[in-house]
């Protein structure tokens, strides 16, 4: 087809199909993201791993919460929120480890990537499913503050902030997990790599004494806990949102680069 006829058909198309069609296309592609996310979430409940991981998280979270509650008679969620970043470090890569590596390993990745779906939409669908699974798991622990509220008045600000913080932190960890899942066809390797990166982000501001003074600020900013704890104080700062947002963006870009190399 010559360039002239091509331009002509393009003009024709744009004339007869104005913005409405564009909008319809965007809705169509978002529907696909939703369908993929639904399918991924549905798949989680096929595998025993998901249940095991969920239960382990809840057992530990429950232990940290109730040990304080019964032993010291304190009505607060602080211990839960202090230990949550550590627990999430295990939970998040366990949720994401199969997302890409399993598809790559069984070959169904080929099927997935020949469906009419861009890579970004595909990754978004997977991440949303993982986030939904995480939200379900964390959602169960909402029973703690609800239990506590029967004993007396609660300060809901830090609690709501803390849960939002868990989701933000979880989102960051999950995107790191998604990235490591793209690196390998072995789920266990994906889990360990994901855990290692999350752990490094946790550790960065724990070793400030080894770092020359003028770098302390930067390293403190890089540490994941510093940002998370702001949430648990009931403060939602754009600085912290930007922090978690940038982790997600970088991990997402990394995943795209890795997958692009498979083409």
């Amino acid at each position, binding site marked *: *087809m010559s360039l002239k006829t091509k331009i002509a*058909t393009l003009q024709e198309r744009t004339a007869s199909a104005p913005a409405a069609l564009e909008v319809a296309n965007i809705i*169509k592609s978002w*529907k*696909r993201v939703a*369908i*993929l996310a639904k*399918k991924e979430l*549905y*798949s989680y409940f*096929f*595998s025993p791993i998901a249940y095991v991981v969920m239960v382990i998280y809840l057992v530990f979270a429950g232990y940290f919460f109730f040990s304080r509650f019964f032993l010291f008679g304190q009505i607060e969620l602080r211990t839960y929120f202090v230990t949550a970043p550590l627990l999430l470090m295990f939970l998040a890569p366990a949720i994401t480890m199969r997302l890409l590596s399993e598809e790559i390993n*069984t*070959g*169904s*990745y*080929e*099927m997935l*990537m*020949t*469906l*009419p*779906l*861009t890579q970004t939409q595909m990754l978004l669908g997977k991440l949303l499913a993982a986030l939904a699974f995480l939200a379900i798991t964390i959602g169960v622990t909402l029973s703690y503050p609800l239990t506590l509220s029967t004993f007396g008045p609660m300060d809901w600000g830090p609690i709501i902030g803390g849960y939002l913080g868990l989701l933000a932190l979880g989102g960051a960890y999950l995107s790191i997990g998604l990235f490591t899942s793209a690196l390998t066809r072995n789920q266990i390797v994906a889990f360990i790599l994901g855990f290692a990166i999350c752990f490094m982000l946790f550790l960065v501001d724990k070793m400030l004494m080894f770092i020359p003074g003028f770098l302390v600020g930067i390293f403190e900013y890089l540490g994941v806990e510093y940002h998370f704890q702001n949430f648990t104080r009931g403060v939602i700062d754009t600085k912290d949102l930007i922090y978690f947002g940038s982790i997600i963006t970088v991990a997402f870009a990394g995943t795209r680069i890795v997958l692009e190399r498979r*083409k």
Partner: protein
Amino acid sequence: MIRIEDLSKNFGQVKAVDTLSFEVSHGEILGLLGPNGAGKTTTLRLIAGFLRPDAGRIQVGEMDAVEETEQVREKIGYLPEYNPLYHDFLVYDYLQYIAGMRGIAPLMREARIREMVEVCGLSSLMDKKIGELSKGNRQRVGLAQAMIHDPEFLILDEPTAGLDPNQISEIRNIIRRLGEHKTVILSSHILSEVEATCSRVVIIHQGRVVADGDPRELQHGAVNESRLHLKIAKGKSDQVLDTLKKLPGVTQVETTQDESAEIKGYLVRSPRENDLRPEIFQLSNKSGWVLYEMHREVVSLEEVFRKLTAN
């Protein structure tokens, strides 16, 4: 119409596809033949948009498969090699998922699935887990997912792999029926399959096209010889050989396996344009032989294939 021009794809040092060109028109079933590792699967993956070519153009309908890959994927139905499906899914759920991803409106999905059940014979499998299906039944599910959105273009990588003979002929019929109003490319290394299903054959070897044409054309073009197999009784072996050799146009005569002590086998070779059957019939009458059998060997695609892809 699918047109491929100078397509190349390298994996490291290996040239999987090397300046490949061919074209398939609407209503045509193209068989992609080649030995293992010839680049069939890579070619199909490039068309389906799973891989990105290093060089060359792929035109699918009016669209460029590299520039407009999402739009092209909407119009393509693809059955990958090894047919990777989600083993935890029920057949019905899987087809629902694919129907949704393929952009079939929710109200239409049931109807489309029902049609696929009919076409691919899935009625007793809908509530089974894909992982529990036999290979043949899994292949049917793979075909169903490739056709569920009624695509204009069908790319099938070894569609009959692992099927039993009954299923193979069923699937062939499905493909032939589809081929009448769609553009179909299928790959295979089973030659009889391509002969039976395809209206055109492209043979590739080491990533390049070595033959392209009608299966019959290829057969004639490749071997320029006619072979007649005879079974003759009454008549001494060497006498028969001598008499046959004297027939004008015969290039060579040899004995083949005997059917019994009396009925002996012969093979007569001649250039393809000479049809010696009438002469041989008359000769055997004249010489007092009893001709039990005479048939002309049709050069198989297999031979063409071996000739073209031997190193």
